[in-house]
């Protein structure tokens, strides 16, 4: 047997030109035509949900529910009379969807047993404010639209969503991002599990208002995508009217390479994951295109390419694992022949993954076959026995250069699985299928759904359009915070170190910082560094992250000023303050055994300490001496004298 899957994997990896991200340069991305855009989701801070009066932001555990409801989704026609591709795919999967409901957070609206109530005006106002900040053209009338989701994540089968503005832009320090649109929409259910033909959701998050900011695909490298995402989130947070914390902000990242297709990486929870994910995705596409060329060079005609299959009835050792995960009545072991596909099933796609994964992922999602759901003729780690292979090949009348997939399934799933395999292989001959992919923590992605198109949109017949009058827009305009880029420039002018900007913007601390400067006269560069270093560090150490009210800091600096302490005393106090936010400042100082000492008194100790350092030394290194003296004085000096001044005096 001449074909070696491991060798083939390495060879295809090389051909794709894949390199680790840390080694990649802009020219590498230019070479393969990196292109990316963002859809940034942000929950809005409202008391109630978007279309009903259930409270927003109350969450429950998986097992804590009051009732369950079962639904099945069917595709329906779009407004323009088309069926949507994703809808048809989801219908093929024939999932039973179970919703777990908690009475406190779900009413009859969530489970689609009552029509929507009027759109939450608080949410609408926030969405318009953010649209204005994003320089979008605000629509004259808001039309609620239904966006179909047949995966069951919304019990109605569609998300109610509406455009607030189109064509905007957001300035980053070195680049402007063009925005396509901003919409307001209801959040979906949270998935609990998805096994076989049964998917379970909970409805606590369902219906909470969020906005989605969509950019043009203007980003040219993975780091820039992350930066863009950060800036959109900074902008959202600058209003102080959005939710923060786990899951409050999520993004979908669209990526393609030259000649590739738009692939949407869904639900990326942290911006810092974006670079690795986009890097891997653009190379996955690039590698699959090389595989297409490899196949076409063999002279395959995609219009006449067909798989063949047979049932394996022998009880073979390798099939145990497949049979273990298979479910249903009358499970069969099926072998599928892929003509002329040798070399593909071990073809590199992402680090540690091959084209086999593309098929296996779809078998899981579309045919509901739990993993491991297939074994191929090109297994890298545990290759199939030659004798088994040739046996099966014989049954299939396979030719040299054909590849083989074996799966186990029952009933209707067999048909779906066979269709799925053939479909994905034919797509490989065409290019990159448009799809949504789920991100994994190792920076790779797996198939989630066929990418939905504009065909899944449908006007909501349950709601009336909402006109947005000029006066209303003007009123909202008058209360907007300043642009992030202006704040960025201010920080720069003030000489605040750049490494703290992200922290300040992501916590929306800029307004507080300005207030502290205005009321206490503290140096901007000092307070900036204090927030970005000392506060961030203390917060990282603390267990009550997210609960600390930053406004206490204003009182702290006012206290220091009133008491005529040096502001540096805040650095000592912050850790305890974080732990006990309700404690009096005086008490914190007492617990730190801090004493007020006069400036002259401290300075008076210098000569004595200098002498002490010099004792028994032949030569005196002045720098060492100064540092030593500083060290001796620091504890009593802090808060009582400016440390830089003290250093000078020494």
């Amino acid at each position: 047997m001449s074909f070696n899957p491991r060798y083939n994997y390495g060879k295809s990896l090389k051909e794709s030109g894949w390199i680790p991200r840390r080694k990649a340069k802009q020219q590498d991305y230019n070479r393969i035509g990196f292109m990316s855009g963002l859809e940034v989701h942000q929950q809005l801070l409202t008391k109630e949900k978007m279309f009903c009066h259930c409270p927003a932001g109350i969450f429950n555990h998986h097992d804590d529910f009051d009732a369950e409801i079962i639904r099945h989704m069917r595709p329906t026609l779009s407004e323009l009379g088309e069926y949507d591709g994703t809808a048809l795919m989801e219908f093929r999967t024939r999932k039973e969807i179970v919703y777990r409901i908690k009475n406190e957070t779900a009413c009859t609206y969530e489970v689609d047993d009552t029509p929507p109530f009027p759109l939450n005006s608080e949410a609408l106002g926030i969405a318009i404010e953010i649209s204005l900040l994003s320089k979008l053209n605000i629509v004259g009338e808001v039309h609620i639209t239904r966006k179909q989701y047949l995966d069951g994540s919304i019990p109605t089968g569609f998300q109610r969503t509406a455009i607030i503005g189109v064509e905007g832009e957001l300035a980053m320090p070195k680049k402007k991002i063009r925005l396509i649109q901003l919409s307001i929409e209801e959040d979906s259910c949270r998935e609990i599990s998805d096994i076989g033909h049964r998917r379970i959701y909970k409805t606590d998050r369902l219906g909470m208002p969020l906005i989605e900011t969509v950019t043009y695909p203007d980003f040219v490298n993975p780091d820039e995508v992350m930066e863009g995402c950060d800036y959109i989130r900074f902008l959202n947070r600058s209003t102080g009217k959005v939710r923060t914390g786990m899951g409050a902000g999520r993004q979908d990242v669209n990526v393609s390479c030259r000649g590739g297709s738009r692939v949407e990486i869904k639900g990326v929870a942290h911006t810092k994951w974006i670079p690795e994910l986009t890097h891997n995705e653009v190379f996955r596409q690039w590698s699959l295109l090389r595989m297409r060329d490899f196949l076409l060079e063999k002279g395959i005609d995609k219009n006449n390419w067909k798989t063949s299959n047979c049932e394996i009835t022998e009880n073979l050792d390798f099939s145990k694992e497949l049979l273990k995960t298979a479910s249903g009545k009358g499970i069969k072991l099926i072998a599928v022949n892929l003509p002329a596909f040798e070399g593909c099933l071990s073809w590199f796609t992402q680090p540690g993954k091959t084209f086999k994964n593309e098929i296996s992922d779809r078998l899981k999602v579309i045919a509901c076959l739990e993993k491991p759901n297939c074994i191929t003729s090109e297994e890298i780690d545990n290759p199939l026995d030659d004798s088994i292979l040739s046996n099966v090949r014989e049954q299939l009348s396979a030719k040299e250069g054909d590849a083989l997939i074996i799966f186990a399934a029952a009933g209707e799933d067999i048909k779906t699985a066979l269709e799925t395999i053939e479909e994905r292989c034919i797509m490989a001959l065409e290019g990159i299928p448009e799809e949504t992919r789920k991100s994994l923590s190792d920076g790779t992605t797996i198939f989630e759904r066929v990418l939905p198109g504009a065909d899944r949109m449908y006007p909501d017949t349950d709601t009336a359009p909402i006109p947005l009058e000029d006066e209303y827009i003007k009123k909202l305009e008058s209360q907007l915070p300043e642009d992030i880029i202006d704040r960025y420039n201010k920080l720069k002018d003030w000489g605040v170190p750049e490494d703290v900007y992200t922290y300040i913007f992501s916590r929306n601390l800029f307004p507080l910082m300005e207030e502290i400067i205005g009321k206490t006269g503290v140096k901007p560069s000092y307070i900036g560094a204090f927030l970005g270093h000392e506060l961030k560090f203390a917060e990282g150490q603390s267990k009550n992250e997210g609960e600390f009210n930053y406004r206490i800091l204003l009182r702290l600096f006012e206290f220091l000023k009133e008491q005529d302490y040096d502001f540096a005393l805040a650095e000592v106090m912050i850790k305890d303050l974080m732990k006990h936010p309700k404690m009096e400042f005086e008490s914190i100082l007492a617990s730190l055994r801090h004493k007020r000492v006069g400036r002259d008194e401290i300075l008076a100790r210098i000569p004595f300490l200098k002498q002490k350092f010099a004792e028994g030394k032949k030569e005196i290194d002045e720098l060492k001496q100064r540092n030593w003296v500083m060290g001796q004085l620091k504890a009593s000096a802090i808060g009582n004298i400016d440390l830089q001044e003290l250093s000078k005096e020494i």
Partner: protein
Amino acid sequence: MDKDIFQGYKGDALEVLKKYQVRVWGTTRVETTRGTFEGTVLPRAENDDDKHIVIKIITGYNIGIDIRNITSMKETGYKKANYKIPEKQFPVTPGLPKVKLFGTGGTIASRLDYRTGAVIPAFSPGELYGAVPELADICNLDTEKVFAVFSENMGPKQYIALAKAIGKEIEKGIDGIVIGHGTDTLHHTGAALTFMCQNLPVPVVLVGSQRSSDRPSSDAALNLMHAMRAAGHSDIAEVQVCMFGPTSDEYGLLHKGTRVRKMHSSYRSTFRTIGDTPLARVNRNEILPIKKNYNKRRNDKNVKILPYFHDKVSMLYYYPGMSPDVLDAMVEKGYKGIIFVGTGLGHVNKELYPAIERAHAKGVHMFMTLQTLWGYVHMFVYDTGRDMMAKGIIPAGNMLPEVAWVKLSWILGQTEEPGDVKRMMLTPINDEITLREPYNGYLVYQGGVPEVEEFIKKVHK
């Protein structure tokens, strides 16, 4: 001409479209004081204002543009939507029962109607097969649009037309009949057809949907499958309403047309049998009987079609302090039959007595039903009840108010002789009055009670 080109636009918005010569379905670029917008102009719903133009932008979303902000507009192309449910030949499978589906305008399969912005039904077997292909595994289907009205517009004329159509189909040898119907008055029609189509040899199943079929979570497809299963395969040859049992997509319930009522404005499981249990449960594959006694399917065609209806029958929903002139006015306007919907065991206040006497003297037929819906009228318990009976009001047992209205209308369409009317009213045709109320005929569980919550967690509501 304008109507087609500027579908739904009127007043100022129409003038703007005319001025810039942009048609509905035209792609356009609009310059406004709020920036530039591009998309396809969509028709506008009739009841919306004349200050906005609706366009579909490239991402598929619809937005409205305030015409007062438009500075210029230009048509750049034209693309009319072709909205059509894919039509496929409904296959004929030997051995499967023949089922006839009558369309009345319900939302079994529907599409968007720009005039109202709501949905309108689509219907042919081919369209239905395109939307719900599973139907072909249940029966051989034929459809007929008897008329197209919304549920709330269903009335005596439609009952009569349906009864006659049912008679004709049975004559032709059909195995079962399904009637697609809006849900609001499904139970009125259920009662009317029970009285008008007696001695049925095959099932007649009324079905609707609480969520229009243009949404993925619609109950329409499953309801239709359940109804076809019941019509084609069930042994129960009665007029039945087939709708969701629980709100989950699990099974349907078959309710007697005379004992069913819509009990929630929007729940899927809105139809309940009142004062009794439903006839049976139905899922995609089988009928699971609940009641043991029912009229069985037969091979003959001996149905009796009695298409009568008197349109001068009304209902009087009593409220405390009701003034007698309300009743006087009805009598004055020529009403021949009045169904009282009284409080408690069947009461109205004393102030109405003289008016009741006057109505009785004029030969108005009066029957008492209950606001409580569950339970029997008991007019012997209190003096007021006895007084009223003496004044000519006849207790109607545990007949539901709407059913009593339908029945009295149907009877007065045949006779106005007081003795006959009373006898016919009180002689049940199909359990509109039952002799006994089973203990499980009244189950309205109270949420919050721990045992109930425990139950709801396990059994889908």
